[in-house]
């Protein structure tokens, strides 16, 4: 005989507007073994929680059913509630009458009947619930941060500050990410280098951070608290232990590669550091463009290197790193605008994309901070900045890239400062919702920037008007006056969409993450767990989650550090007990479970010829149990008996 309490939540009107909640409680009271049933406005609130706890004590309950929202939302909350009232936390059953009933049903009678069926099923199952005991495992105290942009740097520094050891894995030869390419940053117009390079240096100086540049994650094994990660150190052909960063090699090198850092506007050497303030200050050889690798002769760098650090024989190397938590901060790619033929990028030399312009502004850029046309000398007399190129666009990226309005305003300001030109902004909606952003917009309006509300339709160099010969003509409707406008300019700047990294899907697969419909890493919950993922112990920060600016990326970096800390700060962690276990006596060795598990939890023990399930990886989803032909797998908390009983209860309706 069980003593069951049923607690029905109204969720304001979310549930109560379609489900007759008091009728539900009344119904529950009529069910065998139910000794108390109540309904309340917000069961998850303090008074709601106290109501449950008081009833547990008063009625000596040994099972609790909460009919409320999805268990994803509040199962943990209610487990705590009953545990604090002296019950084992697994003697709880959540009935989802919100997402699976009131939100998806219009008719009150239908919704109420469905809720009754669900509760009846839950009562049947509750009678068979067993107390479960959680296991504790050791936690590795170190953390890995993947991606050394501003978000990753911030996360690494915060963690290092708490005394934790951090491995910072960066794919390129330097940390810094996109921010390192900028001259000024909105809305304060801080010099980007002045606020970024000290942080980059702090990474280098920190004794708690092991910086792994020119490295990539190769393989991920293990689980929260105990990840085993294989890192590939790409061959640099320079022994960084010997190199003293004199950079004599880069001066002598005759090889030429395209400068990624300068967006291809200029060439760099084949042995190079990406930019003067790069961290580390030690070079790598770009094999594709190295004269020796191409032609078998040269070795000039080797000749000038007094440290004998050049090593053409170097190979990629691998190492295994063990950590307790991981933060991914791999950032974004800028959309390639060439396929949008109407804007002429790649065909009309006067058309630039946003990052190219950033490089023109930058004093360390190809023009030493002068804004000139591609000929390297002519100053543009008029410039049009085109918003929403490939963003908010069904044909390309449907989402708003969120940052472009603001950096386009920044561009306008810097163009006014650095040229004598007229500046036009062609926008759809001006989005300036951050702190100090509207003020920045106002400032630009006063700086006599010409705002045209309309999305540019075309850029062409063809014109009948002799006054416009040699100019680029931007065609747009000024939607505020309904006039078709042609604007002759010297330079066009495209503000393209920020999109997921090209290899975001591969990274997601490595770490078992989901991606959203656009390909950005998916958070566990958009509001309540924006930095967590569905994989315990793996967190995300910065623009890899969605387009965002530096203030938000930094906040997320800090936040993700705190999240990671909640795991590695403890030496042990509790594992979920509602997991699957194998009855090895019954296992037939077919390995179905190994094949169906999306989390890689079952492993086949070839010595004993049976499957074994790693509890730390198991999410208790039950796929293995359902596909086990020998019924050798038991999903605790959802055993066959419990599930069958619940079905029986449901089918009484």
């Amino acid at each position: 005989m069980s003593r069951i309490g049923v607690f029905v939540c109204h969720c304001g009107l979310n549930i109560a507007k379609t489900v007759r909640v008091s009728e539900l409680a009344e119904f529950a009271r009529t069910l065998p073994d139910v000794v108390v049933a109540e309904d309340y406005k917000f069961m998850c609130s303090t008074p709601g929680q106290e109501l449950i706890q008081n009833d547990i004590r008063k009625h000596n309950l040994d099972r609790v059913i909460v009919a409320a929202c999805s268990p994803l939302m509040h199962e943990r909350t209610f487990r705590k509630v009953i545990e604090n009232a002296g019950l084992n936390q697994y003697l709880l059953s959540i009935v989802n009458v919100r997402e699976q009933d009131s939100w998806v049903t219009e008719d009150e009678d239908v919704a109420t009947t469905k809720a009754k069926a669900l509760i009846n099923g839950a009562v049947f199952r509750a009678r068979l619930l067993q107390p479960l005991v959680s296991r504790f495992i050791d936690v590795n105290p170190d953390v890995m941060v993947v991606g050394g942009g501003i978000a990753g740097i911030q996360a690494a520094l915060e963690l290092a500050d708490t005394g934790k050891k951090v491995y910072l894995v960066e794919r390129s030869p330097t940390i810094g990410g996109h921010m390192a390419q900028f001259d000024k940053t909105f809305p304060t117009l801080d010099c980007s280098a002045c606020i970024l390079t000290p942080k980059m240096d702090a990474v280098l100086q920190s004794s708690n951070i092991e910086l792994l540049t020119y490295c990539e994650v190769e393989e991920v094994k293990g689980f929260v608290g105990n990840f085993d990660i294989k890192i590939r150190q790409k061959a640099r052909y320079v022994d960084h232990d010997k190199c003293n960063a004199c950079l004599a090699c880069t001066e002598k090198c005759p090889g030429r590669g395209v400068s990624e850092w300068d967006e291809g506007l200029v060439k760099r050497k084949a042995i190079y550091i990406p930019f003067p303030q790069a961290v580390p200050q030690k070079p790598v050889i770009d094999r594709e463009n190295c004269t020796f690798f191409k032609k078998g002769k040269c070795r000039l760098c080797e000749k000038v290197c007094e440290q004998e650090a050049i090593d053409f024989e170097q190979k990629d190397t691998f190492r295994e790193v063990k950590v307790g938590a991981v933060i991914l901060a791999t950032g974004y790619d800028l959309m390639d605008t060439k396929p949008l033929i109407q804007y002429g990028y790649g065909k009309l030399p006067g058309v630039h994309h946003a990052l190219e312009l950033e490089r023109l502004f930058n004093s360390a850029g190809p023009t030493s901070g002068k804004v000139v046309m591609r000929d390297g000398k002519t100053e543009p007399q008029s410039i049009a900045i085109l918003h929403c190129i490939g963003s908010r666009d069904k044909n390309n990226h449907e989402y708003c890239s969120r940052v472009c309005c603001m950096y386009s305003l920044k561009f306008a300001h810097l163009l006014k400062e650095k040229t004598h030109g007229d500046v036009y902004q062609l926008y759809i909606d001006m989005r300036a919702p951050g702190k100090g952003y509207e003020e920045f917009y106002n400032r630009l309006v006063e700086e006599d920037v010409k705002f045209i509300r309309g999305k540019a339709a075309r850029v062409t160099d063809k014109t009948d008007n002799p006054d416009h010969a040699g100019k680029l003509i931007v065609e747009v409707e000024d939607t505020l006056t309904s006039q078709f406008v042609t604007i002759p300019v010297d330079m066009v700047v495209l503000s393209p969409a920020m999109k997921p990294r090209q290899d975001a899907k591969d990274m997601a697969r490595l770490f078992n993450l989901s991606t959203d419909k656009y390909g950005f890493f998916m958070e566990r919950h958009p509001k309540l767990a924006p930095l967590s993922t569905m994989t315990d112990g793996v967190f995300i920060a910065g623009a890899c989650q969605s387009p965002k600016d530096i203030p938000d990326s930094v906040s997320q970096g800090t936040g993700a550090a705190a999240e990671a800390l909640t795991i590695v700060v403890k030496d042990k962690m509790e594992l979920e007990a509602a997991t699957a276990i194998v009855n090895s006596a019954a296992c037939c060795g077919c390995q179905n479970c190994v094949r169906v598990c999306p989390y890689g939890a079952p492993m086949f023990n070839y010595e004993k010829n049976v499957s074994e399930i790693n509890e730390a990886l198991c999410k208790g989803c039950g796929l293995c149990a359902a596909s086990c032909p020998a019924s050798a797998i038991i999903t605790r908390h959802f055993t066959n008996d419990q599930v069958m009983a619940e079905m029986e209860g449901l089918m009484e309706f």
Partner: protein
Amino acid sequence: MSTAVTPYLEMSQAIADAGGEAFRKCYQCGTCTGTCPWSPITHFNIRKLMRLSQLGFDGIEDLMWGCSTCKFCVDRCPRGVEIIDLVRSVRSVYAGGGLLPPPLRAFVGSLTARGNPWTGDAPKRNDWAQDKYPLFAEGKEYLYWTCCTVCYDPRNVLVAKATAEILEKSGLSWGLPGTDAQCCGESVRKVGDLDLFEKLKNNNLGIFSATGAKKIITISPHCLATFKQEYGEDYEVIHFSELLADLIKSGKVTPTKDAGGLKVTYHDPCYLGRHSGIYDAPREVLSALPGVELVEMDRIREQSMCCGGGGGGLWVERAKGERLSDLRIEEALSTGATVLATACPYCIAMLEDSVRTMNAEDKIKVKDLTELFLESLEG
């Protein structure tokens, strides 16, 4: 007097109900108007039409006839709004209220009474053929669907003949529809008369099934797009340019006569290009002609300029300075070409008209692909 206006949501709803509900997605960015070929030369403003429809404001009737359904805006619209559907539905709502402009009344009248838009006698539909070509019957492979325009418009009759000649020489088994064939209904659908469209469609579907036609060749891209997208039955429909490109590839017809360095430029018809996605076949045909040099204009393929003849435009007189076909001729002339080739009877009619009114007859000739091809066979 107050100049304030109030949203007239019943009108907005009526437009939505008539099939234009996609306007709800519009966020008024102006990409459509910026893209619209009419913007530089008329006051037609497609975005504004959308805006007025969203709130049911007055002024719709002044704008709604400006669109030639070239589909450029639809392809570029960042919100995926089916803009042509909106144009069609405002027209059907207003034209239903008797607001059809006079030139289009004659057009609709002829279609209603005679089944073609050219006030031609139905029994004379095949007169151009002078009984030289076979009629389609059970057992034949291809039904060559002649557009009303190539049957009745004297200039386009030459296209009908050239096509038939090529078919004869190809050795294919083919035939013409009988004189009970009627207009495919494309233009009248865009003009907003959906009942009439249904009538025409049912007539033609009746012919297809009565004669057992399974493979249909169209000479007009308007018939092509309509059969493919609106008739909704299981026929293989191809445009003659596609067939011709295949015939050349398979060696069934071989152009031989050298045109002696003829410079030809090609105008992509909207209904062949943007509406049907056919850009390469006509170019393949032109490239196969000996002694023909294809020189391209600035606006081609997906970005092609409209001739102005779609959406009922062929039957509406426009003032000088407000004709897209004039601009197209200028563009063609600027390439140095002496022939402007195209593959649509409407485009032929519009462009030919411009060549005449611009007195450019000695500088450039407008020709259908089939005409050029036929010339290169006769050698």
